[in-house]
Every structure is written in structure tokens, then in C-alpha cells.
């Protein structure tokens, strides 16, 4: 029994607790959910600290590694005939993702404080979903990884289809189908690697020691990249995201944009880039161009949106592009920036969707053209929104800058396998998105919060409740802490990135 298993057992147990709570005590469910996720959050911090100690004790050797060093490892045979194990372990990258997930689910529960309709099923599905996400991040065995991946994607369908708004059935169906097609690609890739390695193991690090032929890598790499890329909103497979986010209930949008989309980038790094460096070298240029389109095109598309959720969804398409862009740089700064961006964007977009839910709950509209002057009525929410917006346009002092500047440097420095002028042109194009981002963020925020109160009914609205203040406060503080003192995140992830870079 490892500590890591607690990360999936606690949410599951909490889900069970929510289910058995009688209907007459519906308000107890949110407290159970809050306690359960609170314990997970505390656990994730303790584990990060322990991980950091372990890393410091073996400081120095990491620079020579070409295989990721896992901590808290634990393996139990599962289907021994096929070499499948329940094998869990974490390195700095997964640790950072676990902390991110724990923060988002905790604040997500706070943002769902007032869900009364079928709250039993709502919280239960939410917790099952997060179990799947934790499962993905702790898996070392790729079969286990894939199982958890599916566990994470499926509850989403129900959560959007039942608790969503607008064209929820259409959006839920679209999202699920597109993600399923993506996982089919991933599965094909995983099976190809499994067979090429002798069909004896799904263990990530054992697979990493196999020398795959360049031919194999040249078709498996794009398969896996696109498969995960669908989830990471890779152009042109991103269109599930605006519809899906617009229809999803608040906490689901938070988890989905905040964490689930990060599974895409995580999968690309862990499976595609790590296992298939040769494939990555061959395909880097192709995907670099696609992700550049992601970044620039998402930002321009965001300018014209009038629904706050579509607005944020397109902004996410642009920002998630930075993750995949960084991964295509194939160097230390690119990978590092990608991981920081995963964390930063997760928190930032969780904050956005949480705030949109809160504002929408009050004003009953998400239409930018109908809003105005809200900061007078809700200063707390307005301030949080502004801080989130400034983080998204890459203001130094907030986490977005740390991530983006690292990605830009990574792209500009380039690598030996892609023509440096092309890399630089792409990087500069990606960099130009900081201006476009400033345009749409400032326009959007000014519309909603500044000016005169546009609708007399808005005069009755209140500012955030205690639960909402706690929710937004935690997220804003995280953005600021990482932004003001980046070593808290960089020290955590750097040692885990070095072995991946060393393989190139």
C-alpha cells in the first residue's frame, strides 16, 4: 500500500459517503465533499514536500539520468500474463499536476456549494471524475494510465448532459465522441509500443529502455500526439472545447479546463515525447506549426466572442497552445515552460470558470453586450476577475509570465532538428499573441465590470459569499505565489524534466 493509492481511495470513499447520505440531509454532502477534497489537498502538499526532500538527497545524479526517477513507487501484478501491473509512482511533473488537481477540486466543491438539484449524483460523479484524474497522474503502468484516463472522461458526459445549460446534450455528445476518437488513437499507439517492446510489459520506464525503430516512431508518435492533442485542444481538434465548456456546470468547467485539458499535454510529454524521441524530432516542425496556429488563432477568435464562456474557452485554446508549443521545442526550457503553463493555466482557467459561474448565478446572463458596471456591486469578484485576466495576458508577478517567458525562450533557442529560422518565426508569431490577449482581456473585463450599471436589476446584486471568497481567494493566491516566487514550482518539476531532455 502506497501513499499514492490514497489519492484515489479518498475521493472514491468520499463519493461513497456522498451517495449514502440520506436525501433529507443534502447539505451534509457538500461538507463531506469538502472534507474529502480538503484531506486530499493537504496530502498533496505533504507529498510534494516529501518528494522535494527525496530529490535533494540525490541531487546531482538526476542530471545524468535518461529514465524518469519515480518516488513512492508501488507495484502489484494485475494481469500477469500480459505484464499488466497496478504500478504507481510520481515524479515532479506528476506531483505538480496532482497539486493542481487537488486545488481545483477543492475550490470546485466550494464553487458548487449551492448545487441542490440531484446533489447526490452531482458530487458523486465529480468525485469519480477526479479519481480518474488522480489515477492518470500516478500511473506508471500505461495500461492503468489508459483505464484511469477513460474513467476521467466518461463522467463528464453525464455531468454536462444532466447538469449543464444550453445545448447540453449536443455538447456532451460532441465532447465525448471527440475525446473517444482521441483515445482510440492513443490506444493504437500504446498497443504498438507494447508489441514492439516484446508484449511483456506496459511499464513506462521499461518501455523507455527499449530502442524503437525510427519507422515505428514515425507513425506512432503522431498517432499518440494527436490522440492526446484532442484533449489538449490541438488545432483543428479543439472545437469540442467551446461548446463543452459553455454547456458544462461551473465545477465541471473548472475541472475540465483546469485539469482534464492538462491530461493532453501530460500525455504528450509522458508517452509521446518521452518514449519516442526520434518520432518527436521528425514531427516537431509539423506540430509546432499547428500549435502556433492554436495560439494565434485562438486569441483572435476570442476577440469576437460575446458569451463569457465562449470567450474563456477560446482563450483556453490559445493558452493550451503554449503547452503543446513548449513540448515541440524539444529543449529544457520548452518542456519546463510547458509544465509551468499546464499548472498556471489550470489555476487561471479554473478561476475564470468559477468566477463566470458566480457572476452568471447573479446576473443571469453571460452575454457581454448586456453586462456593465458590475464592479460597483461586486468588488471582490471584479478584483479576482481582473487578477485572473492580468495573469492570462502574462503580467509578471503572476504565474502566466513565468510560463510564457520560459516557453518563448525555449522556442527561440530551438533545437538541432528543426530549422532555426522557422522556429524563430513561429516563436515570434506566438509571442505576438500577448498583444491580442491584452486586447480581448481588457475589452471583456471593461465590458462586464466598468462603466455604468447597464441594467437596473443589477443594482440588487450582492458580492461573493464566504464560500466563493475562499474559492477565488485560494486560486488568486496560487497565481500570485507562483508568479512572485517561481522557484516553488520550478524546483519541484526541474529534476523530473532533465531525464526527458537527456534523451534527445
Amino acid at each position, binding site marked *: 500500500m502506497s501513499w499514492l493509492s490514497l489519492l484515489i481511495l479518498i475521493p472514491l470513499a468520499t463519493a461513497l459517503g456522498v451517495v449514502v447520505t440520506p436525501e433529507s440531509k443534502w447539505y451534509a454532502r457538500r461538507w463531506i465533499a469538502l472534507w474529502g477534497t480538503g484531506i486530499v489537498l493537504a496530502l498533496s502538499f505533504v507529498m510534494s514536500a516529501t518528494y522535494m526532500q527525496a530529490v535533494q538527497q540525490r541531487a546531482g545524479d538526476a542530471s545524468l539520468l535518461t529514465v524518469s526517477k519515480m518516488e513512492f513507487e508501488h507495484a502489484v501484478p494485475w494481469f500477469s500474463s500480459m505484464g499488466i501491473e497496478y504500478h504507481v509512482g510520481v515524479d515532479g511533473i506528476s506531483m505538480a499536476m496532482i497539486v493542481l488537481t487537488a486545488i481545483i477540486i477543492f475550490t470546485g466543491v466550494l464553487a458548487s456549494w449551492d448545487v441542490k438539484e440531484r446533489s447526490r449524483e452531482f458530487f458523486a460523479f465529480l468525485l469519480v471524475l477526479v479519481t480518474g484524474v488522480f489515477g492518470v497522474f500516478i500511473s506508471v503502468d500505461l495500461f492503468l494510465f489508459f483505464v484511469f484516463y477513460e474513467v476521467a472522461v466518461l463522467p463528464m458526459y453525464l455531468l454536462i448532459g444532466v447538469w449543464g445549460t444550453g445545448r447540453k446534450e449536443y455538447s456532451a455528445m*460532441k465532447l465525448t*465522441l*471527440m475525446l473517444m476518437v482521441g483515445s482510440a488513437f492513443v490506444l493504437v499507439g500504446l498497443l504498438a509500443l507494447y508489441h514492439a517492446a516484446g508484449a511483456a510489459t506496459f511499464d513506462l520506464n521499461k518501455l523507455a529502455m527499449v530502442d524503437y525503430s525510427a519507422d515505428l516512431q514515425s507513425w506512432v508518435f503522431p498517432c499518440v500526439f494527436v490522440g492526446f492533442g484532442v484533449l489538449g485542444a490541438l*488545432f*483543428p*481538434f*479543439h*472545437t*469540442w472545447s*467551446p461548446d463543452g465548456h459553455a454547456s458544462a456546470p461551473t465545477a465541471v468547467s473548472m475541472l475540465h479546463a483546469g485539469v482534464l485539458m492538462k491530461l493532453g499535454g501530460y500525455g504528450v510529454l509522458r508517452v509521446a515525447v518521452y518514449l519516442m524521441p526520434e518520432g518527436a524530432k521528425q514531427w516537431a516542425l509539423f506540430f509546432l506549426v499547428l500549435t502556433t496556429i492554436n495560439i494565434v*488563432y485562438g486569441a*483572435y*477568435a476570442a*476577440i*469576437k*466572442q460575446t458569451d463569457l464562456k465562449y470567450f474563456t474557452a*477560446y482563450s483556453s485554446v490559445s493558452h493550451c497552445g503554449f503547452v503543446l508549443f513548449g513540448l515541440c521545442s524539444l529543449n*529544457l*526550457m520548452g518542456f*519546463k515552460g510547458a509544465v509551468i503553463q499546464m499548472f498556471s493555466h489550470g489555476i487561471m482557467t479554473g478561476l475564470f470558470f468559477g468566477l463566470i459561474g458566480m457572476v452568471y448565478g447573479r446576473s443571469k446572463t453571460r452575454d457581454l453586450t448586456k453586462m456593465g*458596471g458590475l*464592479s*460597483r456591486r461586486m468588488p471582490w469578484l471584479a478584483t479576482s476577475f481582473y487578477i485572473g485576466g*492580468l495573469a492570462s*495576458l502574462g*503580467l*509578471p*508577478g503572476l504565474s502566466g*509570465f*513565468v510560463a510564457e*517567458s*520560459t516557453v*518563448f*525562450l525555449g522556442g*527561440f*533557442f530551438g533545437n538541432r532538428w528543426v530549422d532555426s*529560422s522557422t522556429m*524563430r518565426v513561429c*516563436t*515570434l508569431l506566438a*509571442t*505576438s499573441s*500577448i*498583444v491580442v490577449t*491584452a*486586447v480581448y482581456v*481588457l*475589452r471583456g473585463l*471593461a465590458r462586464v*465590470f*466598468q*462603466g*455604468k450599471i447597464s441594467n437596473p436589476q443589477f443594482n440588487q446584486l450582492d458580492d461573493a459569499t464566504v464560500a466563493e471568497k475562499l474559492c477565488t481567494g485560494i486560486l488568486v493566491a496560487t497565481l500570485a505565489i507562483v508568479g512572485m*516566487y*517561481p*522557484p516553488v514550482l*520550478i524546483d519541484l518539476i*526541474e529534476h523530473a524534466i532533465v531525464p526527458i531532455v537527456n534523451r534527445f
Partner: protein
Amino acid sequence: MTGFIFENAWLIPAMPLIAILLIAVLARGENRGLAGMIGSAAIGVAFLMTCWLGVSYLRLADQGAAAVTWSIEWLRYQDHLVVSLGTLIDPISLLLLVVVTSVSLLVHVYSLGYMAGDEGFSRYYVFLSLFTFSMLGLVLAPNLVQMYVFWELVGVSSFLLIGFYYTLPEAIAASKKAFIVTRFADLFFLAGILVLGFYVHQLVVAGGSAASVVGAATTQTQALDFATINADSVLLALKGQTGIFGTDLLTVAMLLVFVGAAGKSAMFPLHVWLPDAMAGPTPVSALIHAATMVVAGVYLVARMFPGFAASEDALRVVAAVGSFTCLFAAVIACTQTDIKRVLAFSTLSQIGYMMLALGVASAEHPAGFGASMFHLYTHAFFKALLFLGAGSVIHAVGSNEVTEMGGLRKKMPWTHATFLTATLAIAGVPPLAGFFSKDEILGAAWDGHHALIFGVGVFVASLTAFYMFRLYILTFLGGCRSAEAERAHESPPVMTIPLVVLGVMSLCGGWIGVSHFVLPGVELHAHLAVMGISVAAAAVGIGAAFWMYGGQTNRAETIARSLGGVYRLVKHKFYIDEIYLFLTHMIFRFIAAPAAWFDRHVVDGAMNLSAAVVHRFAAGMNVFQTGQVQTYGIWMINGTILVMVFLWLVQR
């Protein structure tokens, strides 16, 4: 450099940061009056610490010494690209520290009166402290990334303060415009950082090997430190290289950085945000949009001066842009009637002077460098005074338009006296501050044999005297032109005392040898001829102003009418805003809107189309799904036979 204050110079920017936290905690609701006290006290302490630092520095044996006295690791990109936050102490950072803390202190005190009773009093002081913190961080930056970090932070505090009156549409529009225009410029700055980061890093890494260009590069050598970038060996190595499209790498990098500087310092054609920024509270205009933030661009060029000087082309561009803006803005200033806008264009023009001075300097003849810093320093005081005086007038009259002022000389004696002092100072009348610094700039241009630039400088000196006296006469002399002006009275002492302090600085500030402090050991000499020319230019300008606006004549209107189209062109600021508006509109219409449409209809359409195809296919497959076990059985048997036949064939 040893001593408590050197090693703890971070305490200076920390003061306003502490003020923000204290205000956030203590000055809420009923207690919001505390905000002003806390903010002013904190910046007062920062000012005293700066004085202590300055005195300690002057006692050093080695004048002109530069050292990073404190630093912590902040952002680790990779080896030799580790960014630290630190404090770089050298003459120019010290000079800027003095300017920023002193003007900021006076503006904090002045605002106690000016902003009294405002609903957003606490918010105002939080933003003001945030700005001061960021500006101090910028000034002390020992590397390019820290510079960029605080560069963006001053930008955002400027944005917040311009949009302080957030219900006014023009304030909202102006704040967005300021942020986006400077952001656009910062994009180039960032690109410059990427270019320098890459190539200097390459040199530093090579420094470890035998073919070292950077003597003795250690693991401590960081590519983005100013000390590394400004090193002669690095600049020499960069100068030889060619960058993209066969251009001179160093020139490209420096020009990219200069675009950033030009954005922040509102140089033509990126100046459009500054006049609109006057929508913010007037003390903010004094601090941010006159004395400190807008000179950050000049400071950046000065900070990286060795690079500009090594690439002579980049320096030529600085000189050209500076001289053009200097002239262009001064011409516009002659036609504006909004008191703050006249001052805004005057600020553009004076910053143009500073850039021009840097542009005519060189490594061998650095006089222009000293003159630029000198002018930055004197300008901060007299321009802050002009804005605060304007604020006092606006406070009393309730309008920005000079057409509704007039005759305020007797009604507001302190404001009048100090405003006149500043007007004389900016016009370059001896022995006030502006005379000395402007004279040094003209002298540097003269010595460098830049005849055209010298001519522009003299002409603008004359124009400056003209439009400033025009403003002075319209505001303070003659009869009152509105009922509000009739009823105007002097502002409270909390506002007039800062005016007097700045008045004293505008009067005597030029007597301090700033150039000698900035350029120790460099021979600087005065030019009697240049002095004569500059005084004559000022006299012509002042005379013209009195001739046109002094009496009850309509000479001004007659001249304006006789100029016709030219006058309208200038009055509308050469229609540059309209051009930008058109371009932005084009981007929205032809890039953003199509992108959004394309996504909804083409990309998403393709996804939906493939879904529809699959759906059709599935519907077709329904034929086989009869639900009859017998049918399934037949298919199964047929299938098994097929597979067996296939296997049998393969076996053979």
C-alpha cells in the same frame, strides 16, 4: 560598496509594498482616510532611505562605481540564464531613485487634498503605492528580465490609474489604449530580450572554452545581466554577427529594445496613448505621465547605452526619433486648449529632447548622455510642478479648458507663483533648472557637429517658450472667462506646500552638477555661444506668446485662420489617432471576425460533417442489426468459414 543601506537597498521598494498590504488590511470602509497617511508615510521612509543611500554613495572613494549589492535567485530558465531579483547601484539608478521617491512623496501628500472625499480613496493609494513599488524595482534592475518585469508592472499600474474613474467611458477607453499601445511596443522589447538572450548566452557558453570571447565566464555569468550585455567583449563579438535577413545582429537587437523604450516613453509614432492618459486623476499625470514612468524609456536606453553606442545605426535612430518627436509634439502643443493636453504634448517634446541627447552621445564624447540624465532630472521637477499646478487650477475651476479660465493670478497666488516658476524653468530662462539641462543638450549636439539636430533643438526651445507662455497667459492673466473662474480660490496648504517644494527644485535644481555625478572624470565645458542662442530662442518664444495672447487682440485667431488647413491638421494632432482607429478596425474586421467565423463554420463544420457521415454509415449498418438470433447465427457461421478458408490459404 559595503554598508547596511547598500546591502539592504531592497528596503526602498519594499516600503510601498508594505504600504499596499497595510492599506488593504487597515484602511477599509470608514477608515479609508488612513490610506493616504499610510501611503505617504511609507514613501517618506523610502525617500529618507534613498537620501541615506545617496550620501553613503557620495562618500565612496570610487565615484561612478556600479555594483549589484543584493540579489536573490528568482527565475531559473537554464544555466547562464538564471534571473535574479537584485539592486544595481550606480549613478543613474541613484539619480532615478532620488527623482522617483521625491516626486512620489510630494504627489502622495498633494493627493491627500486633491483626492479627499473620493469614494475610491483607498483604491487610489493602493494603485499609487503599487506604481511606486514597480518604478523603484525598475530603476534598480540589474538585468533585462527584472527590467521587463517591473516595466510591465508600471504599465499595469498606469492602466489602473488612468482608468481610476471607471464609470467614465473616456477613462476606460484611455486606459485600454495606454495598455495596448505600450504592450504592442513591449512585444518588440520581449523579442529583443529573446534575441539578446540567445546570442549572448551562446557567447557566455563559449566563454568556458579556449576560444573565449567573454573573458573568464563562470557559472555565475548570466547572459541577461546588464553587466554581461554591456561588456565590451560581448558587444564586439555581437557586432560582427549577422542576424535574420543578413542584418547586423547588434543593431537589430538594440532597435527591438528601443521600440519598447519608445512605447513607454511615448515617442512618435507610439505617442498616441499619452495625451489620452490625461483622463486619469491629475496627480497621477504628474507622477506617472510626466516625471517618472514615461522617462523609463530614456532610462532603458541609458542603461543599455554601450550597446546602442557600439551599434552606431541604432543610436542614429534614437537621435532621429527623439528629434522628430521633440518637434512634432511641440507643434501640436501650440494649438491645444485642454491644459493637461498641452502639458502632455510638452512632456512628449521634452522626452524627445532626452532621447535626442542620448542619440548625439557616443562612447568617446559622452556629454549628451550626462545632459540627457540631467534633463530627465530637472524635467521631473518642473513638469510635475506644472501638472500639480494644473491640478490645483482644475480643482478650483472644475474644467480642463483654458477657454474657461483666465485671471487666476490674484485668486490663486501660490499656484500662480509656482506655475510661473515652472514655466520659466521649462522655457529655459536662466538661472532656472531647465536652462542648464537644455543648454547642455544643445551643447552636446553642437560639439557632435549634428547641425540639423542642433537646429531642431533651438527651434523647439523657442516653441516651448511660446506654448508654455501661451498656456500661462490664458490661464492666469487677463480677465476671468467663466463663472467658475470668478469663484475660484486657492487650494489648501496640503496641496500648495508640495507646489512650493517643487518650485524651489525648479528654481535651484539646475545648480547641481548632475552631469558630473553621472559622468565622473569626464571633461565637460560650457558654451557661451550656445547659451546665448538658447536664451535668445526662449526670448523670441516668450515675446511671441505675449504679442499674440497678451492683450485683448485677436491676433491668434487671425493667424490660425490664415494658416487654414495646416492649422486644422495640427489641431487634430495630424489625424494619427484616426489612422490607428482605422487600422484597429481593419484588424477586427478582417482578422478577428473571420477567425471566429471560420472556427464555427469551417473547422467545427468539418467535425460535424464527419459525425454526420459516421451517423449515416451507422444507419446503413442497421440492416444487419435485425435482432433475430437466426440471422446472427448465419453471419457467424459464414464468418467462421471465411476465416478458416483464409487461414488455410495463408498456410499454403
